């Protein structure tokens, strides 16, 4: 009986793992075939390996440009979000009478980000920030800021004040204390929200689509979306494009798995 339950448990887990991996396997092998092979031999390994698909898609679909745009936008948004978020969270954690301000910030966690889609378009148009990376960065900052303040506030509350008092006695100013004592201690919290924020920005599509229309400024998710129209008949190229867009995430995931899992689940549970 024990063995049967253990066996069926193993079976369920393995089947689910297989169903998770299979779609990626298919995209990966298809990206190395040609059109004909995808049709004739949909599930096997490629008979002849067409590495050229990658060169083609990287060049013609402008994926390299989109890739750098996404990297720039996500990195800037996360850096600014962490800085102003940590500054605000620090004040909220240290000043007793700021409960209402804390409530004001965490209100944003409850707001579905779609609620600001239409106004953000109008607002950025008025500010002449449509089609600019800066405009999108601003929106990405605010859409992750509430969670950032919430998590960092909890984290900074746990850091004892004595360290800062000692720093003050040593003649450190408040800003210097913040930069050289508080921030380094908050690193784990910063890493958690930073990872989550980065993935959110990197994978975001709707706001990028609405706010950025000019070809050279588009993000990687927009580039992926464009694959459907441009190469809808050539599956091999679409699959190569998909792999290019997923590969960085797989690599980052392999390197920072614990961090990413922690960040995403913290985001989910606290959101």
């Amino acid at each position, binding site marked *: 009986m024990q063995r049967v339950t253990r066996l069926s448990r193993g079976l369920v887990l393995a089947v689910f793992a297989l169903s998770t991996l299979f779609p990626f396997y298919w995209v990966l092998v298809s990206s190395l075939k040609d059109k004909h092979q995808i049709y004739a031999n949909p599930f096997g390994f490629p008979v002849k390996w067409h590495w050229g698909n990658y060169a083609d898609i990287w060049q013609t679909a402008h994926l390299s440009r989109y890739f750098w745009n996404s990297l720039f936008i996500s990195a800037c948004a996360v850096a600014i979000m962490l800085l102003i978020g940590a500054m605000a969270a620090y004040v909220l954690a240290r000043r007793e009478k700021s409960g209402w301000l804390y409530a004001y910030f965490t209100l*944003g966690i409850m707001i579905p980000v779609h609620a600001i889609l239409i106004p953000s378009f109008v607002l950025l148009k008025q500010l002449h920030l449509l089609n600019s990376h800066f405009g999108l960065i601003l929106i990405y900052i605010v859409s992750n800021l509430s969670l950032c303040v919430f998590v960092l506030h909890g984290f900074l509350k746990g850091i004892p004040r004595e360290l800062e008092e000692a720093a003050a006695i040593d003649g450190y100013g408040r800003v210097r204390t913040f930069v050289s004592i508080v921030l380094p201690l908050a690193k784990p919290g910063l890493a958690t929200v930073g990872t989550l924020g980065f993935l959110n920005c990197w994978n975001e599509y*709707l706001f990028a689509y609405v706010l950025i229309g000019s070809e050279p400024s588009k993000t990687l998710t927009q580039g992926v979306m464009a694959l459907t129209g441009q190469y809808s008949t050539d599956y091999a190229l679409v699959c190569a494009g998909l792999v290019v867009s997923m590969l960085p995430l797989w690599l980052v995931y392999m390197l920072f798995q614990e961090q990413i899992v922690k960040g995403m689940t913290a985001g989910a549970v606290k959101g």
Partner: protein
Amino acid sequence: MRRKHDAVFYGAFVLPAVIVYTLFMIYPVAMSAGYSLTEWNGVTAKTFEGLGNYQELIADGDYWQVVRNTGQLIAYSLVFQVGAGLAIAYLLAKVVRGFRFYRSVYFIPVIISPVAIGLMFSLFYNSDTGPLNHLLDSLGLSSWKRQWLSDPHTVLKAVMAPQIWQYIGLYVVIFLAAIQQVPEELLESARMDGAGPFRTFFNVVMPQIWDVFQVCVILAVTGSLKSFDHAWVITSGGPGNASSFIALQMFKTAFISNQIGYGSAMTITILAYAALFTVLFKRICARLYN
């Protein structure tokens, strides 16, 4: 002197976040509410309509169709993300060998962009060249083959499948962390009392992870209310509105039909559904618990 200095420091530190947040988050929500009371194409002058847009919504068959679709998405998410995620987490928690492997595999789709996942599935569904129909052929199930994305009976499920599939791993990992916090003594004493895995689950594990379970339910519901990317990539909501959801309809209304006011009214309903559900659900749970 010191106090005054402190006030300046605190103000200067909190101000950047307050300004950005107020200007680009809170103010826009208020703008949405304002727009929802007007008729506006985004170019010419707005005309004030009062609650006209909301009255129109109530009579709008398309709107209720996408609300029903979203309702279905919520139901399937609760069963196949929260339910299945919890079951898998419970099974996985007892595994020693391969634990880390399974956990990392299940989480892989979670980190990929929804647009890429949607595109991937739209390839699978292609009725001539897609692997799904191929797979059915090779399993001898040719009669199950469909034109997945043009058949109104299958298209909604076809669009829901990838978004549900993609995030099961997130729920597995969240539940797994919660289940691992359940004190070993409780499980041990349940075993001593001769409780089977099902009784142990409902009487011992479930009460311990109740908070996390609630959070996951709210997450699944609010996540479904925001659903956009997968449907947009795979079908753009079509044919007709057969595979559209509220957020997608809101986008189309505002940015394709240029009805900013009407689209904003839809936005406000999304906000209202999310808030209403969260408040009611928390209330009900609090009552259940006491």
